[in-house]
């Protein structure tokens, strides 16, 4: 995490709303992507993004180490999204196993360019766990140890799961290689 971000977090922890506003702008892309990949619906993702940042602001004083902000925010985002997924599954009366492994048919924002749509459609074919892993691992500000902490699994397991997820993703995208590289 950069020094500027660390200063922003410290200021926000003291109640500076403008600093938190900058943090929100900087992390919206990450939180939104995580929410979109976990729920498969961009309207829900927008709502969950809002909810995550609101929870973050309300709980910010409990954050002990400013440097841990990205992981802390990722944990809030993940839990918020998991709650939403569980609530939706209960409504649809889907079994847990089915819900975790079931593929999504994502609704994506109209502003996404075609290659991003291809990527998101491919990611949506992974399991819920792999969708989270792919998103968390590619977020530059999280180490694999931090990802492990967010996911509540050992760091070694993160690497194994990530390798499998990437291989699976490559297999899916191979069919659309021309569209993607062209």
């Amino acid at each position, binding site marked *: 995490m950069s020094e500027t971000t660390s200063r922003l977090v410290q200021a926000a922890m003291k109640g500076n709303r403008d600093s938190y506003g900058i943090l929100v702008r900087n992390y919206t892309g990450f939180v*939104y992507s995580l929410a979109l990949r976990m729920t498969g619906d961009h309207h829900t993702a927008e709502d969950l993004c809002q909810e995550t940042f*609101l929870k973050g602001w309300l709980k910010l004083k409990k954050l002990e180490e400013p440097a841990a902000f990205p992981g802390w925010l990722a944990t809030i985002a993940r839990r918020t999204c998991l709650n939403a997924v569980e609530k939706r599954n209960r409504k649809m009366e889907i079994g847990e196993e089915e819900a975790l492994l079931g593929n999504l048919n994502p609704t994506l*924002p109209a502003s996404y360019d075609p290659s991003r749509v291809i990527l998101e459609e491919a990611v949506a074919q992974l399991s819920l766990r792999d969708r989270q892993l792919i998103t968390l691992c*590619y*977020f530059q500000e999280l180490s694999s140890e931090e990802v492990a902490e967010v996911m509540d699994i050992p760091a070694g397991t993160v690497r194994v799961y990530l390798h499998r997820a990437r291989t699976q993703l490559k297999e899916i995208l191979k069919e659309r290689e021309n569209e993607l*590289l062209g």
Partner: protein
Amino acid sequence: MNSWGNDLLEEKIDTMLASSVSRGSEPSGFRVKFMPRRPVFPWLTVVFVLSTALILAFLMAYWLQKQDLTGIDYSSVFSVERVFNLFSEIGSGGIISALAVILGLGGAIMAFLPEKKRPLRHML
């Protein structure tokens, strides 16, 4: 996250996945709306209204005590003319009464005007 191969497709996937979670990767036009500021409790207005009400009550009690309550004609006591007399008969004690009435009215308006009518409140 390091690339997991030299394959062109793998590189492309890596780049796209990294940019999909970076700053500005959210859909265009989407902004997190920051929560509204918690409204400050209007302590000053409350104190103003309460003290005005106390002064009014005191003056009203004082004034009532001076009235001949046995044969009182309520229609004339609470008439519009009587209210206007409060302002027209400004003497030594009348000034206080008139001020109390104005303060009371102003306080009541300030306390009960909704936030949306703030410009009107400033005009008053």
